[in-house]
Every structure is written in C-alpha cells, then in structure tokens.
C-alpha cells in the first residue's frame, strides 16, 4: 500500500485568465481507488488529464512508476504520451464515447489491436471481458443498441482489456440512474482494484465516492481535504 504509482507535485495549469490548477500535490498509491470530488469548475477534469498525460501542466511534474521503471510523464513528447496512454492507462468517460459503427466486442478489441495484437486474439480477449462484466450475448450489438449502463460497461471493458495498470474515469456514472450507477461502479471497482490495479475517478456523486478507498476534495484548483472511503475501512 505504500508504493506510489503516480506522483504529482506542484501542478498548475491556466487556460487564459482561468487558473484551473493552482499548485496540486497528489500521490496515487498502487492498487487504491482514489475519488476526486469538488464543485463544477474546481479543476477535477484538468487534474485527471494532467495525471494521465493528456494535458501538459504549466508547472509541476507527474511521475509514473511501473514494473519496468519510472518515467516522468511531464517530460515525454506528445507521441510518447500517446503511447503511454495506449499501453499503460485505461479511460472511461461520462458518455462512454465508444465508436458507434463498431460492435461492442470490436470496440473492446480495438484497444488491443492498437497495441499490435492480432484481431482474432483481441476479440477473444474482448469477449472474455464483456462476459465478466455481465454482457455475454451482447458482444455483436452495435453501441446504439445498448442501454447507457451497458455501454458504460463496454467502455470499462475497453479500459481494462489492455491490462492497464491505472484506470482513469471522469464521471463514469454521471449519466446513469442510481441503481445502474451502483452496478457500473461495482463493475469498475471489481475490474480494477479487485485485480490489483489502480483507479482514479472524478465524481460529483458522494455515494460513488464513498465506495473508493480514498477521497480528495478540490476547490479553486487546489486540494482542500482528504478523507478515507468505505473501501479502505473494509480492507
């Protein structure tokens, strides 16, 4: 529990006159589930993007530690960042943002194919993940033929299938009702921390956040508080 997978220090980022991040230090422990909470506009998404190498901060550093060593994400080129995201990270967004023309299993398999896995094997893995997430029998449906909760599970499968060591989720349950939200959250936890991976999640929903092991609160681009969540107490 004490080793860190991501360490960020002194992160700041401005968009024009808007100070989205104003000096954030945050360490993400290997295998934990970390929830980032805060009012709209407090900088949650910006922080997540900086941690994941999507947005480059104006100042500060982000380090990523994996089995093969340590890299400084903030020092990588655009291409290297893109490759890191593809190979080491997984993402779940609020709207799923799956490719509508592809079937469920193709959406999942695509993540593996991008890393060079042959299609047949990639789809086999994809089917396995979809079944594990309760979507057996829906593999060949197109995204438009799935419900919001089902589509979100496909997105979770896509984020997991590459064996990503860290999964970043930005309001993954934001568009779902409370029952579906709870089920999707369970699926997300099972497939990440349940498998020894790390989950970093942005949410507005306190009931979602409390199921994580740790919660940080943001306000005006700063972290203003930290709490322990249900998962930690239980563990």
């Amino acid at each position, binding site marked *: 529990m004490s080793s860190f997978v991501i360490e960020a220090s002194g992160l700041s980022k401005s*968009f024009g006159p808007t100070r989205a991040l104003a000096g954030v230090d945050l360490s993400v422990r290997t295998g934990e589930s970390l929830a980032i909470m805060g009012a709209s506009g407090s900088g949650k998404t910006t922080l997540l993007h900086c941690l994941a190498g999507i947005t480059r901060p104006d100042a500060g550093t982000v380090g990523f530690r994996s089995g093969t060593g340590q890299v400084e994400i903030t020092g990588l080129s655009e291409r290297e960042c893109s490759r890191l*995201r593809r190979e080491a*990270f997984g993402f779940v967004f609020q709207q799923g943002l799956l490719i509508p*023309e592809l079937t469920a299993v*193709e959406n999942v398999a695509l*993540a593996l*194919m991008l890393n060079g896995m042959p299609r047949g094997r990639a789809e086999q893995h994809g089917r396995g993940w979809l079944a594990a997430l309760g979507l057996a029998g829906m593999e060949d449906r197109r995204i438009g033929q799935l419900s919001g909760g089902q589509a979100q599970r496909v997105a979770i499968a896509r984020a997991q299938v590459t064996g990503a060591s860290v999964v970043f989720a930005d309001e993954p349950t934001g568009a779902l009702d409370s029952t579906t939200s709870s089920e999707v959250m369970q699926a997300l936890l099972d497939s990440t921390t349940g498998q020894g991976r790390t989950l970093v999640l942005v949410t507005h929903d306190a009931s979602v956040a409390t199921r994580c092991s740790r919660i940080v609160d943001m306000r005006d681009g700063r972290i203003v508080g930290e709490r322990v969540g249900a998962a930690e107490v239980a563990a």
Partner: protein
Amino acid sequence: MIAGVGWLLARPGTTGATATALPVVAFAIMTALLLTVIGGAQSFWTWTDDIAVTYQALAVIALVLLVAPLASLGGAAARLSARRRDDRLATLRLLGATPEAVSALAVIESVVLATLGALVGVVAYFALVPPLALIPFRGEALGVEGVLLGWPALIAVPVGVSLLAAVSAVVGLRLVVISPLGVRTRQDAPKLHWLRLLVGVVVVVLAVGIVAVLRVAASAVLILAMLGLAFGAALAVQNLVGPWVIRLVARAQVRTARTPAKLLAARTVLESPKAAWRQVSGVAMTSFMAVFAGSGVAVLNAFGEAPDLESRLLLDDIRTGILITVIGSFLMVACSVGVNQAAAILDRRDLYESLAKLGMPTSTMDAARRRSVMSPLRITAFGAALTAAVVMLPLTGVTLIVAPLSLAVIAAVLAGGIGVVWLGLAATRPLLGRAGRVEA
C-alpha cells in the same frame, strides 16, 4: 416559448463558424460553376449554320455530364447545413416542438444559407466572365456578350439553388420528424435490396439500345434528346447500384480486416453505404468523362489531318470542350469531397477527441478516414468507367475505346479524378488534427 427555445438551439454554437461557412461556400461554388457552364453553352445556341448542330450535340453531352455532379455538390451542401442541426433539432422534438415547427425551422435555415451562398456565387460568376470570354471556339473568342447571361438565368439559378436546399432539408429531416430519438441514437440499419442491381442492368441495356438507334433518329433535336437521355440514365443508375456494391464489398472487408484502421474504415462504410457513395459519386462522373474523352480523342486522332478549315476548327474545339468538361468535373469533385469530409470530421469531433485521449494516434484515425473514402472510390471509378464504355460501344465500336491513345487518356483522367479526391482528403487532414488534439 417554442420559438424562443428554437432560436437558442438553432443559434450557431461553438462549431458554428465553420459549420455555417462550409455550406455557404459550397453553395457559392455550385452557383458560380452552374452559371459559368450555362453561360458557356448558351453561346453555341446563337449559331444557326449546319455545323452548329454538331456543337450543340456535344454541348448537351457536356452539360449532362456537368449538371449531375453539380446537383450532387448542391445536395452535399444542403445535407451538410441540415445535418449540422440534426442534434439540436432532435432535442427540440424531445422538448415538445411540433414536427411542423421543427421542419420549418430547418428548412428556413438551409434556405437562408443557400441563398447567401448563391448570391456570393453570382458575384464569383461575374468575376469568371472575362477569362471565360477568352476561350476560343470556331477560331475566335466567345466574347463577353456570348457568355454573359441575361436576367432570367441570373435570377432562376439562385432561386433553383435555394429550392434544392429546401428539398434536401425536408428529405434529410424526415427522420428527425418521424422519431425524435432516431437521429440521436443513429440506430437505423441500412437496407439495400439486390433489386437495385437488376434495375441498374436493365437501365444500362436500355441506354445502349438508345445509343445504338441514334443514327436512324429523324431530327437533330431528337438525337440531342436521346443522347442526353442515354447518358443521364446511365449516370442516374450509378446512384442506385453504387451503394449496393459498396456495401457488399465493405461487408467482406469487415470480416477480413486485420488492423484498427482497416476495421474502422470498413465499419464506417457499412454504417452508411449511401453516404460513402455520395462522397465519391462525383468520380462516377469523371470516369464517364474519362471514357468519353478517351474515345473522343481517339476519334480525333483517326481523322488525322483535317482537309478543310471548318473540320480542323471543329476538331480543335472538341479538344477544348473535353478539356473544359474534365477540369470542371474535377473542380466539383474536389469541392464535394472537401465539404463532405469537413462535415464528417465536425460531426465526430467528440469521438475523435476521446480516441486521442485513449492514445489512438492521429495517423490511425486519418488512415481509417482515408480508407473509408478511397475504397468506395476505387469501386466507383472503375465501375462507372465500365458502364460508360458499354454505353459508348454502339457509337464508337470496340477498336476506338481500346485504342492505345484512348486508353491512355482514360487512365490519365481516372488518375486525375482519384488524385483530386486524395487532395480533398489531404486538405481536410488539419481539421482532423485539430479535432483529435487533446492538448489544450
């Protein structure tokens, strides 16, 4: 109340500038080209001597070949301006606006953009008149009076363009009006019947028949009408068969795709074979043009050195006509590919951005996009060339079409048409780069 909400939703959003400018530009180009073509052709009808009929026959063929891609460019522009609003209009329906209110809003908006574009197009046409007047036919320049259109045409063309936009908008919006959720979820699975193929074959056979009996036609006017009919029908039938064949090929490609780009491209085409066809349908035209130009040039060559001045001038003029028609069709194809691609990228901005976040390289997205255009393009280009050759056969015979010179011209024009589409793709690549850029 609805009107107030309607305005809020219909107002250009963040993507407004590009989304509004594109259809306006497309309508402007379309209007300018249409006026230019009509202007050029009208001067042929001021001649009254014997040989004038030959010129008019050739002009009719050129017009048929050019008007079809013009209509398809106009359709693309109209669809673009209508589609930009799909989402907002579906939202309006969800909010409870009546179907009539939604249709009216969409149609008005499309017509306003089209009229704006058409007016710009008229101005552009006037700018084109001086160079157009310099083109020589029958040994002398056409002259400004020859190509300058009268008021009736200058009013009729913009009005026609606006009408086309209105019709396109109505057709395109039927879906939204029928089902508020239809457009939002994009669920309709495309169905294309094999009967299309049958109808296609029948029409081509009829066109060949018409061309075959051309010689026995009683009057010059009848010959012109028959030629126009044969070519128009053969071209129209491409619209019927093209999507069907494209879908067949895409289905096979989905099964065998090995790379992400190939899979994405094949699925994109399969999602809407008609849309894939529309993107490249202009090339069906350049392929027709290629065969036409090829056999035309071969005919000229067979004539060798013309004995008298009049035939020498005619041969020169046919060359000029072929060149103008080919260039005109290239221009229109380039425009419609540009318009369609820009629209496609704007439509999927969110998706491209999210794919970039996942770490999909822009090069993969671009490869998928290129494939989804180039693969239907190959099918279309060669399929149309084949159809054109079949329809030309009774007129020229096999020897002329397969003459080395003819084949060389056909190959060159086909390559030109494909190259122009490729340029259209390359020109819109920066837009993709911007859509897929995640770094703020």
